[in-house]
């Protein structure tokens, strides 16, 4: 403990009275009032009370700040977790979008293939029917012409009709082939 000299005692009391400045902190705990000096004892009690009040106030504020800091830290961690979850969800959404795009492309491709197949089947059918008609008409006319020739009938009209018919049929055949080739060429180009 530190015993205060008369001069220091008077200065401390004066400063407290005039300027309201009091000794504070742990140093205060080292000060000892001279024996029987009631005034200085009271001064030390006031100093201790003031120091204790200030410390209590500071302790309370610090604890509040500490608690708020903890809450902020907790909130920051939650936010971080939310951001991470959001990022994961975003990645999943991107992945799903890619998958959907892939499926859509596959579906479009399938549809295109189906359309082409239908087109080719239709063309094939037209060609078959056309060929059947051409061959049928050719064969019928030729048979008629042959029967007429074998029977010794006049074949002038039939001969002309046969040659005309054959010419027309050949022309039409080439026309059909040309059309098929054209369609095929156009389809290949659009691919």
């Amino acid at each position, binding site marked *: 403990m530190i015993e205060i000299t008369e001069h220091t005692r008077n200065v401390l009391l004066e400063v407290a009275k005039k300027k309201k400045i009091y000794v504070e902190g*742990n140093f205060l*705990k080292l000060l000892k009032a001279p024996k029987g000096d009631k005034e200085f004892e009271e001064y030390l009690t006031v100093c201790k009370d003031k120091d204790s009040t200030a*410390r209590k106030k500071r302790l309370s504020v610090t604890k509040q700040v500490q608690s708020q800091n903890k809450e902020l830290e907790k909130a920051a961690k939650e936010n971080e977790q939310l951001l991470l979850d959001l990022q994961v969800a975003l990645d999943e959404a991107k992945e799903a979008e890619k998958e959907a795009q892939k499926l859509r492309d596959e579906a479009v491709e399938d549809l295109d293939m189906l359309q082409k197949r239908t087109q080719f089947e239709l063309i094939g059918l037209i060609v078959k029917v056309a060929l059947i008609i051409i061959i049928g008409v050719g064969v019928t006319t030729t048979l008629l012409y042959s029967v007429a020739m074998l029977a010794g009938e006049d074949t002038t009209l039939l001969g002309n009709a046969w040659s005309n018919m054959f010419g027309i049929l050949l022309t039409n055949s080439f026309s059909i082939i040309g059309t098929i080739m054209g369609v095929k060429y156009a389809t290949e180009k659009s691919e």
Partner: protein
Amino acid sequence: MIDSILLIDDEDLFHLVFEDACSLLDMTLSLEALNSSDEADRLFKKWFIEGPIEDRPECVFVDLNIIGSSFDGIEMIRKINTDYGNGVVIGIISSSDDTQEIEKAKAVGAQFWIIKSDEIEPRLEEFIKDYDGYQARTAPFKVYK
């Protein structure tokens, strides 16, 4: 009253809390607070090698997880007790109450474990009551909850 206390804790705000609590409880007149175990390690090394060894604090409170330090509180206690001649009352002050960690601390020579919370004063008050036993090395390891 404890002659001198050293607090090793990375949280500056807790330094203020601890300092005010110690002052209000008249625990000590001399309190030094450090942020890292590395700094504390340097000081203990200095006191142990260069001396004077009496400059060592009388009581040391170490946080369990000291962010930004090379080693944690348990390792700090082990170093002080085995590498730097022991001789101080030492324990953990942490918000954790992990029993495994408590056992580890006990194994390296910690004398107490104080759980940090908003109401630290009642625990410190209880600690002061037991302090003489810690100094005389007669008090058993205790967790202040």
